[in-house]
């Protein structure tokens, strides 16, 4: 169990042409479950591979506690890793797969046996120990890979999209199991995924990456409710956050967001932050679940709200939720997520209620959040 610290970590490929990881500073606390989240090609896997020692950094440092492990070979780092393809060795039985790391470290035989049984029980795969990986299903192989990773009681557990090859149902089940296992073992865990649901449900904290940069680090709810940029805001949440280009105007009743077909008066407390954007364009963001339609459903815990007018364009009935696509003004299409089944007619005029405490305003050029 150890704290992992990345210091200005960099990895360039092709003589610096491709900046896979471009200067990351991140501290993963002892025993924490940190999720590295980002789209494919954002550098999250490269970051993980550098922590594992499978990739040599171009610059920066990796600390495990007060030990600088930047140039240690993987075997000297006391880590474990679960690979995307499971990487269970096909020429060994499940037992031998799990026992392999211990055998290399020359543990006594009876101790190996005890530990393998313990790890197999945790997953649980005790009844599969004599089998070969080819005789197992994908989910079972995944369990073997996890058992092999925990059997050595690593200081740091690394997981590289371990669930992405499983079917949807199994993925949900494994998600909970891995999280429970990690809580029980209290091992510092770094988990790479592009699946925002995995990130939200599993992580103690989420680190969102894009184009080799670390954009935001924080607990899931914080990253979700207070995204610091357009990228983070739209990457997390389904359906995606609505984005509209609006301008900020000074009117008699205060600052107003003005766009085609909408006018939202802002509370006075935003003035200070928005002062320099008066008469300028900004990006207004609002999540589909932070709006409702008047007379249809109500938003709970909403203290302040504003209304805008729209026309129902399309309805997606998902069973548990209904997603209403509404046209606001010319060309602006926004999605509203409402719980339950909502019988609305296409083409009907509706009043959309916006939760003022959950609106986001982004700078148009830097794409960073202002509010």
């Amino acid at each position, binding site marked *: 169990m150890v704290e992992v610290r990345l210091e200005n970590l960099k990895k360039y490929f092709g003589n610096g042409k491709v900046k896979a990881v471009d200067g990351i500073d991140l501290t993963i606390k002892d025993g924490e479950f940190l999720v590295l989240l980002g789209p494919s090609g954002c550098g999250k896997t490269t970051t993980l591979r550098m922590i*594992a020692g499978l990739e040599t950094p171009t610059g920066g440092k990796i600390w495990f506690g007060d030990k600088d492990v930047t140039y240690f070979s993987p075997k000297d780092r006391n880590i474990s*890793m679960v690979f995307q393809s499971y990487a269970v060795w096909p020429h060994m039985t499940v037992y031998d797969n799990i026992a392999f790391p211990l055998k290399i470290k020359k543990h006594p035989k009876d101790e190996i046996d005890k530990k393998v049984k313990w790890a197999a029980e945790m997953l649980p795969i005790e009844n599969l120990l004599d089998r070969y990986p080819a005789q197992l299903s994908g989910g079972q192989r995944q369990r073997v890979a996890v058992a092999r990773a925990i059997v050595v009681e690593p200081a740091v557990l690394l997981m590289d999209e371990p669930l992405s090859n499983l079917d949807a149902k199994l993925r949900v089940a494994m998600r909970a199991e891995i999280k429970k296992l990690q809580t029980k073992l209290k091992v510092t865990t770094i988990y790479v995924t592009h699946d925002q649901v995995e990130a939200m449900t599993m992580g103690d904290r989420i680190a969102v990456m894009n184009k080799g940069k670390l954009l935001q680090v924080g607990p899931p709810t914080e990253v979700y409710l207070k995204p610091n940029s357009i990228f983070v805001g739209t990457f997390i949440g389904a359906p995606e956050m609505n984005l509209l280009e609006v301008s900020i105007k000074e009117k008699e009743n205060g600052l107003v967001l003005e766009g085609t077909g909408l006018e939202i008066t802002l509370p006075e407390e935003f003035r200070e932050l928005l002062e320099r954007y008066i008469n300028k364009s900004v990006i207004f963001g609002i999540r589909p679940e932070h709006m409702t339609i008047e007379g249809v459903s109500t938003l709970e815990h909403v203290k302040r709200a504003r209304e805008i007018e729209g026309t129902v364009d399309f309805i997606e009935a998902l069973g548990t939720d209904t997603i209403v696509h509404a046209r606001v003004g010319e060309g602006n299409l926004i999605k509203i997520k409402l719980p339950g089944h909502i019988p609305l007619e296409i083409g009907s005029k509706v009043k959309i209620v916006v939760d003022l405490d959950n609106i986001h305003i982004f700078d148009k050029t830097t794409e960073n959040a202002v509010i």
Partner: protein
Amino acid sequence: MNEETKFILKKLVFYAFIFTVVAWIVIPIIISTLYGFALPKDYYDPKKILPTSFTIKYVKTLLITLGALDGIKNSVIVALITIAISFALGIPAGYAVAKFIFPGKDTIKLSIVALRMFPIPVMAIPLVILYIRLHLIDTLLGVALAHTAMSLPFVVLITSSIFAGVSKELEEAAMVFGLTRLGSFFKITLPLALPGLAAAAMFTFVMSWNEVFVASILTLAHRTLPAQILSIMAGASGGAAPDYYKFAAAFIMILPAITFIFFARKYLVTMWGITLK
């Protein structure tokens, strides 16, 4: 023509084609095997298609009196040395080509193949002169070295496709769990590649076994089987050899190739880069 007859006709054409191809390959093999043991009067008899009386006389004479047995022994030694050297050099090269990205990789791959474009007869005289100077002429090691040069490109390409079939993550997992790169090669990659490598070894064996030109020009007293048979057939016995020796010789030559295919066909597919997954 309705759909059904069309379908049947298509099938017929298909099977006729398959039959022709198979017959093309199999008939000479069957004939050589049968005639190798048949009495000459049987295959000179126009009324007979298949021989009915057999003897091991000709095969025996060829093997013992005419020295084919020594040839077999020499061939086996040469083939084993060839396998040893070409694998010692080819496996690391194949591994590098399969697993690493390095500058000039494509050029190297291409030049490996291009090596095989040189017609060996062009190099015959310089090769013999070189061998005389190095005192390698008429030695089994000399033939094995020449065969190594010929089979190495294939060994590199074949082993690289075998190693490419062993996923990188399997090796990386071994490294994470406590092995060095070399250790993970020996404990993980090599065992997984072993069936394919065995097939590649057999392939090299047959290549060396069948090679006649280089073996003929480089040796005199220590001939490999094909070279030995060639000299028996074409002159050492004064003029062309009788047909029954030709058939017996054909049988002896074919045997290892057939045995090889029998054991290796399962892995041959992997060898050509189509990994079975």
